């Protein structure tokens, strides 16, 4: 049997509550009403509300404030703002803050029935989808990492085995492929997960600084060392020591490190006491170490010491099937972080993402999505939201050169409207923006419905 659909009406006017409740009740919905925001919040825990229809102007907490509260505690509840006074500004504000729709009283009964049905339908789909997605994600997930590429999944499997051992791991891959993320995953999968994960960026420091950073120093070891300090190796204790950018350390330090790793003990700079290493070491680099060895920049013996277990993360351009998955992963994450409500990426924008070469790999993709989510106005990320260089030779409108973005937008909107005979809902959907935004743009660009000539 289908589960009941619960609707909460919030309005300070009794007659509004009563009449709307009666109308919705006749349609078979389970309806309850609250006379103000505070009462509404009290009623939130009572049921799984599918929909809240909230009056904009109420004494005390207004509709937008209430919506914010609802979205915090009940993000799955869809909010429709109702108002008697139509101001585009508040409408835009409400929709931006995540209102599903903004309706101006009085509303056409046919439209209201449709709107509510669409919401319920949409919610059902989202629920099913979420469930399916979660099921899928299980296989493709390793802590904060996602992938559906077979090589990556092999790596994920390897990580789970490797994590149980104490062997040194060398993680290689281009910049931004997730070397650090993977190293953290190894740590989290290991019995050491409750101990510290200590990261040392070897590229960032001069030889001397790196030495004292790694091994610590005794008081008076060098000028300025007026107090003894433990290094990262000590701080890692029984946890994991992550040596990032290992390919960048000097030959002298390479030798020190080799000895320390072989003997599994070290001395602080200027110290005499030997301190045992109890941590697990993971090293990472985006350099081609084999080439560095040939060039005499990296010690071969250290390489073999480090390369006990070797993991090579393929670049993103070699696993493009991961792009949609990563996009979704970042959307989820930034939706939460930014308190946004972006549903997805328009088909054409996704095509651009798939075509890009991603020299900066997953990190570059993450940054592109993050920026797009900051600039996007609607629930969809569009081509224009992506700050990507347009690949050359992409077939586009032949006359698009030299036109401003605004001109292109105007032209595009005009075309979509015409193709859909000025059906606003459908056009807005295709454009990936909400109705209010579309109305705003129509006004801004002074677009007018042209009579269609029959030929």
């Amino acid at each position: 049997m289908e589960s009941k659909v619960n609707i909460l009406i919030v309005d300070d006017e009794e007659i509004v509550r009563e009449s709307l409740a009666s109308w919705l009740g006749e349609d078979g919905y389970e309806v309850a009403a609250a006379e103000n925001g505070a009462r509404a919040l009290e009623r939130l825990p009572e049921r799984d509300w599918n929909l809240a229809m909230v009056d904009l102007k109420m004494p005390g907490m207004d509709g937008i404030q209430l919506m914010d509260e609802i979205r915090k505690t009940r993000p799955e509840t869809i909010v429709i703002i109702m108002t008697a006074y139509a101001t585009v500004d508040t409408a835009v504000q409400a929709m931006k803050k995540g209102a599903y729709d903004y309706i101006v009283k009085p509303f056409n009964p046919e439209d209201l029935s449709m709107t509510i049905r669409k919401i319920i339908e949409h919610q059902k789909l989202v629920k099913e989808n979420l469930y399916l997605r979660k099921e899928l994600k299980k296989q493709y997930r390793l802590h904060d990492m996602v992938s559906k590429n077979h090589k990556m999944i092999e790596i994920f499997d390897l990580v789970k085995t490797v994590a149980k051992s104490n062997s040194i791991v060398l993680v290689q891959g281009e910049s931004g492929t997730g070397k650090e993320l993977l190293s953290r995953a190894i740590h989290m999968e290991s019995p050491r997960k409750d101990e510290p994960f200590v990261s040392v960026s070897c590229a960032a420091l001069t030889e001397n600084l790196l030495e004292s950073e790694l091994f610590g120093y005794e008081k008076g070891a060098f000028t300025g060392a007026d107090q003894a300090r433990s290094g990262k190796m000590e701080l890692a204790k029984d946890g994991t020591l992550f040596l990032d950018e290992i390919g960048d350390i000097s030959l002298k330090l390479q030798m020190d490190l080799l000895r320390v790793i072989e003997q599994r003990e070290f001395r602080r700079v200027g110290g005499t006491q030997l301190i045992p290493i109890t941590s697990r070491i993971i090293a990472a680099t985006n350099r081609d170490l084999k080439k560095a060895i040939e060039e005499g920049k990296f010690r071969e013996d250290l390489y073999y010491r480090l390369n006990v277990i070797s993991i090579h993360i393929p670049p993103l351009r070699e696993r493009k099937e991961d792009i949609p998955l990563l996009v979704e992963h970042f959307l989820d994450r930034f939706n939460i972080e930014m308190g946004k409500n972006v549903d997805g990426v328009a088909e054409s924008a996704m095509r651009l993402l798939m075509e890009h070469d991603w020299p900066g790999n997953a990190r570059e993709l993450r940054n592109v999505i993050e920026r797009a989510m900051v600039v996007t106005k609607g629930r969809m990320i569009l081509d224009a939201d992506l700050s990507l260089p347009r690949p050359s030779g992409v077939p586009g409108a032949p006359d698009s050169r030299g036109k401003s973005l605004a001109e292109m937008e105007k032209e595009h909107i005009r075309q979509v409207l015409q193709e859909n005979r000025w059906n606003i809902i459908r056009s807005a959907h295709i454009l990936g923006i909400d109705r209010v935004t579309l109305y705003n743009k129509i006004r801004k660009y002074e677009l007018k419905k042209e009579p269609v000539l029959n030929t």
Partner: protein
Amino acid sequence: MLRKLQVHLRDTFSVPARIMKTMSVPEGSYERSRNQYNSTRILREILKETPPDAIKILGIVDRDLCIPILTFVFGEAQLGGVASIVALARLRQEFYGLSPDDGILFERLCKETLHELGHNFGLIHCNDRECIMYLSNTVRDVDRKGTTYCGSCDSVLYLKTDPWRVQPWNRR
């Protein structure tokens, strides 16, 4: 037309139907800015007029009804309750600039009356496009649907009206 409706209702539900004396449209129900009448307010007044022996009370008003959030309603009913109301204004052909047609008006009135009374007997909207309990938001919808309840709505109704039904052998 009221007499014809009375007969139609009696035959449909097999319960006696009575025409009451005319009631004036409650003053407080007029919405000046919209030139319409608030159906919920009228419904409240109708409820007060319920005779002690009545199981349901239906008001028919020759005005255009609305509720605050909707531009209009054809009628309103207390779900599973006692009172309901149907408005004639938008059931008339004249409303749409056509010439008056009593036949069409009566058919629409019958459909909307049975629909609202269905709500009074606890029925909610039905997904069957032919069923009288199908939600109709336009006269086109009203005209398209059938004049009777679908099988499942009818059986619910049969159970709900059972206590009051006049048995055929008692009927005069």
